């Protein structure tokens, strides 16, 4: 079993198609939608976590690409600008998956992309505009 976090960019004609249920049924994947932003007649964006056999994951993602969905790994969408970060730790108490975490000995903050679920809670909390989510 493998887990993958991805961002799907839908063209407008696919927004009302049941593509996710196809992923679940035809490719036997467990799908957990983390965030969705779909505006009618426009593009849709979906952040999700998929779990399944390695081969099934690949096949599922290929299917999405074939029908015209742009697939990106989630990490591309969340950015921590280390040079803007002052290590104040303001974000630490809102980042529940601990993607933003602090070494309690040195009080140094770090960002682990793989843990980030793009919940956006850190965005209004960071006073230095060090977190950016392109979504």
């Amino acid at each position: 079993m493998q887990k993958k976090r991805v961002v799907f960019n839908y063209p407008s004609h696919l927004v009302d198609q049941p593509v996710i249920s196809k992923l679940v049924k035809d490719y036997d994947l467990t799908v957990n939608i983390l965030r969705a932003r779909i505006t009618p007649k426009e593009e849709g964006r979906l952040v999700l976590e998929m779990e399944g056999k390695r081969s099934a994951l690949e096949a599922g993602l290929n299917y999405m690409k074939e029908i015209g969905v742009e697939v990106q790994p989630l990490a591309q969408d969340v950015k921590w600008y280390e040079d803007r970060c002052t290590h104040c730790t303001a974000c630490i108490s809102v980042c529940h998956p601990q993607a933003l975490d602090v070494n309690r000995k040195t009080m140094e903050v770090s960002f682990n992309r793989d843990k980030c679920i793009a919940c956006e809670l850190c965005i209004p909390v960071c006073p230095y505009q060090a977190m950016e989510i392109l979504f």
Partner: protein
Amino acid sequence: MAKTIEEINEKIRRGKAVVLTAEEIIDYAAEKGVKKTAQEVDVVTTGTFGPMCSSGAYFNVGHSKPRIKLGGGRTYLNDVPVYTGLAAVDFFLGATAMPEDDPRNKIYPGKFSYGGAHIIEELVSGKDVRLTATAYGTDCYPRKSLETYISLKDMNEAVLFNMRNAYQNYNVAVNLSDRMIYTYMGVIQPKLGNANYCNAGQLSPLLNDPYYKTIGIGTRIFLGGGVGYVVGSGTQHNPDVKRTEKGVPKMTSGTLAVKGDLKMMSSKWLKGTSYTGYGVTLTVGIGVPIPILNEEILQYTMIRDEEIWAQVIDYSDAYPQFIPGSLGEVNYKQLKSGRITVQGKEVPTSGLSSYLKAGEIARILKEWIEVGKFFLTQPVELLPSVDSGIVFKPLKERPIKKHH
């Protein structure tokens, strides 16, 4: 045996001064003993890097040809208004100033992504900003408008002047209500969802000299990456508060007013800061050297996070309504552990003042002293202490009589 500032400076000149940071001194003195350490160590360096709203800078931009009197007119830097109630080409830019067309909190919570503090950061990093002005015109200053780029190096003077910085201790902010609140203490989650604190604890300048026995008017300091001076106690300086046995205030207390040449500073240590729903502020790096004149002064600098207590205040009601009362006391060791207990509930903590950067400042200042490029000063006058009789007054409102 007590030391004097002159003796310490002589050792700095000879490259022989022993300097430790306020963090290093703790274990060092515990191991070697107070007596020996007080003889050996000459200076303890402190640091803080947190948001300080009562910051700003004044400028003299030079006279244009023909001349213009900005005083009494309207002047902007990158559309942010500056204060011109001064002579022809002097003005003051406040850290919290923002463009007139910023929506503020009309779209709640406002972003406050740009303001005076960001301009200070940009100027210090060498960038050009737009200076625009309108004036009423006089016989000696005929010009009525001005539009030009300007940078720090073009100006005659550019001085950081902060009327209140480096708060000695601060509140821990929580939210008892059931909606998210947006404050100068950050975004605070409902129902005790988090607790925000804002002090460097054992590294903080005024917590290492709690009775202001070495810090005063004329104390040379690290300011914004350059050299600055304490020019006096800051506004709201309130020394006579509840203190621990070791003299450490258990709540907001002393403050510093500081100034320094902006041209010598760095944007690494002056950061434009945006508090969602609250406004713009400037995060300022300050480091104060404490001369170890005797054992008593040394003992003050040995203060540890677990000996520094702060009050937990509800920012959904008690603070805005100015209702006294604390939900309890916590110390900085607890705050830095990431969890405190308030009203029996475990609450995750977040800082607003960077302990990591505070340590970096203390180490930079230590190095400046070690290599002989920073000397200590004898203050002209110490800051007012607990016996000063200072009382921190609220505003007493009196109805204004209406005349017809």
